[in-house]
């Protein structure tokens, strides 16, 4: 993965984070939005424009890829590059969380 892609995505935006997180299993845009809404109890909404813009951009940058269509729905799954970014980001958020409570990183 190129440096510039890493720089572009880390820290991950909330839409990008939830999309990558849910695409660890094959899924489509609208379903990701509903799962995100449920998991965050309506805190994070991923409406159509934000969702499609993020999907198209992440597909172009190779963080996710399409696995085909189910009906008119386009299905996506995370790529290795996407997994790398997600893991990196999870570690970063964990560090922030610990540090915010005054705990050192172990």
């Amino acid at each position: 993965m190129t440096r510039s892609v890493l720089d572009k995505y880390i820290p991950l935006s909330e839409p990008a984070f939830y999309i990558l997180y849910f695409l660890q299993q094959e899924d489509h845009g609208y379903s990701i939005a509903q799962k995100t809404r449920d998991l965050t109890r309506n805190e994070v909404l991923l409406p159509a424009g934000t969702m499609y813009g993020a999907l198209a951009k992440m597909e172009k940058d190779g963080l996710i890829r399409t696995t085909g269509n189910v009906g008119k729905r386009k299905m996506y799954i995370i790529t290795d590059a996407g997994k790398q970014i997600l893991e990196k980001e999870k570690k970063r958020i964990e560090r922030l969380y610990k540090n915010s409570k005054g705990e050192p990183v172990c």
Partner: protein
Amino acid sequence: MLKFRFFTLAQYKQEEQWLESMAKKGWILSSSKYPFVYLFQKEQPKDMLYRFDFFSHPTNADECIHLYEEYGWKNIPSVNGFLLFCKPVSVNDRKELEPFSTTQSREEMAERIVHARLVPLTWVTGLMFLLTLYTAFRFAAGAVELDSLVISAVSFTVVGILVLSCWIQMYHLQKGIQNTES
């Protein structure tokens, strides 16, 4: 009813507002398949939300339309890579319905317009300038009539002013996006 109205590439927010005010008067847009041409149908006055998205690539456009439809938006045939969607609304759920929830995604939409439309148009303007310069030299050398030079210069000026005002509007649009809370 057929209506003509001029909006630049950077005035899609104004265009949305205008369409919404038309719907309030009972004029519901059925299509805008040609630039600046709007076909309306008379219905009951309604509160409608009109929103543009932009994807210049047809594959992206189709996928984008399908996704919006899943969210309950209706696509209205539109031109120039602009995708137009509408949804009837009640006043209180207006914010909940917005198709863009983050400043970043709003900025990225404006960026797509800049890269796919405004930048190429600027190159065209540059070429028109060179053509005018070339015609001026040819005129000085007595190889062409004054008419050619005038036509070339006038079209460069008109297009140049339009493109420049597009850039200025786009600058203000992007500033506005940054200053809006998401």
